């Protein structure tokens, strides 16, 4: 029950956020999936993409994965593990809290993540999905 409530809250009120240096204001769903699948490594201007996520069991991560990427968190974890443990890619950076998500995305050039609307301030950009 509590889980359902926090899921609903997370669902209603979050945005995809980027570092203010990232020029993109909109992105295709396919590119968003490729970025969080750790298969697309650069922004169109050549800047390295730095991906930040919440832990696998965080309600916000579950909501984001299912609604924006259309995948289940376990699928993302399997895909990242396959990359990391075969050496063919890297894992995203995991942050422990929404506060850390904001701080890391705001301070890391090329960063992308997601955050509750209530937490957001001018230190990060909002990215819309086409």
């Amino acid at each position, binding site marked *: 029950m509590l889980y359902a409530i926090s899921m609903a809250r997370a669902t209603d009120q979050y945005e995809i956020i980027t570092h203010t240096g990232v020029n993109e204001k909109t992105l295709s769903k396919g590119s968003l999936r490729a970025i969080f699948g750790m298969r697309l490594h650069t922004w169109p201007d050549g800047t390295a993409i*730095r991906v930040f996520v919440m832990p696998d069991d965080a309600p916000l991560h579950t909501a984001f994965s299912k609604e924006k990427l*259309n995948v289940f968190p376990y699928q993302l974890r399997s*895909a990242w593990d*396959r990359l990391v*443990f*075969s*050496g063919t890619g*890297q894992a995203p950076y995991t942050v422990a809290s929404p506060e850390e998500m904001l701080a890391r995305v705001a301070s890391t050039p090329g960063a992308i993540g997601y955050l509750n609307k209530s937490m957001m301030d001018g230190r990060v950009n909002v990215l819309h999905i086409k």
Partner: protein
Amino acid sequence: MYSISNSGPARSPWIVRLVVVPAFLWSFAAQAEKLPQNLQIHGFASQGWLKSSENNVFGKSASDSGSFDFRELGLNASMRPLTNLQFSAQMLSRTAGEGSPGNIRLDYGFIDYTFLSGETSQLGIRLGRMKNPLGFYNDTRDVPFTRPSILLPQSIYFDRTRKLAIAADGAHLYGEHRSSMGVISFQLGAARPLVRGAETEVAFLGHDFPGHFTPKVSYIGRVIYELDEGKLRFALSGSQLNLGYNPGAADIIQAATIRFTPLIFSAQYNAERWSLTAEYARRHLEYKNFGVAPLNLDFTGESYYLQGAYRITPEWEAMVRYDVLHIDSDDRDGKKWASANGRPAHNRFAKDITVGLRWNITPSFMLRAEYHRVNGTAWLSTLDNSNPADRSQHWDLFSILGSYRF
């Protein structure tokens, strides 16, 4: 018949490896936050226990106390100095019965350069030692978190020619195309297989002869097609593995070649709560010019499994699998082989029913338990079961495993 690891320095006591290596992993994990942004360090450590009714798996599992002789430790580093350039390497120590004594070795180590990268496609090259892309699980087969069970389906991921199957030194071309129709990706490589020690001879010839195998240029490839964001995954992988045999002094065998050609079809469906996975493999094995009639073989093996996993909660997952191996598809029950060799037919097949449970205590620590009911002995290790007459056709195996990763 597992890997006989490279004959290195004397083996350190297992207790040292059990304590010291995880301590290293732990300190790396603690340091990970301080690393430069493009350097990543990851690793894992696992310990298993196996108990079987008859037949040994990974040590003396049939003994009263079972076998603790199953440990996997890995530590990897990757770095992206440029957005299109990555360096990756992993060190691995695997202890699994007589065949894998736990020597630390380079699991993979390569340079990855993406020379073409766009919003929907990429093309790149890897040079060095890469994991062989075979089926869904070969690339990460020693990492418990990436496996569906403690033991991978042995029909396809058997350990008999483990070292040959696991990695190779050479070059891979890889690419990916993403569209609304799905994601198609491929890896294609030419490489020198890893031929070390007596493993290859024991696996292919039955025992260690005076001469030795030499790796020849071999080919490997895999195409994966993912539909609906990976809810449906299909893969086709194949390899043509070429080995030469150089006879030694007073060798009864002549200069000869072996060509091993496995082909694997893989399919998976992923729903929120459950996943269904099936793989089917045909392995053509051809021995040429050995000069000894019984060694000039040409046959095709066949393997398949069907596996279901159910995520009861995010913490608990149950699995069930039926896994079948036929060494020779023209002699599925092994009777022809038995009458020609005078040994029991059950050496030529194995049918394994497995049920298992996985408990994710935290995202980085898990416990697993599983039970196998097996009919047949085809994938048993010769080294762990040195007397063929002691093998029993119908047997049970129970195993638990704990694994930590970061």
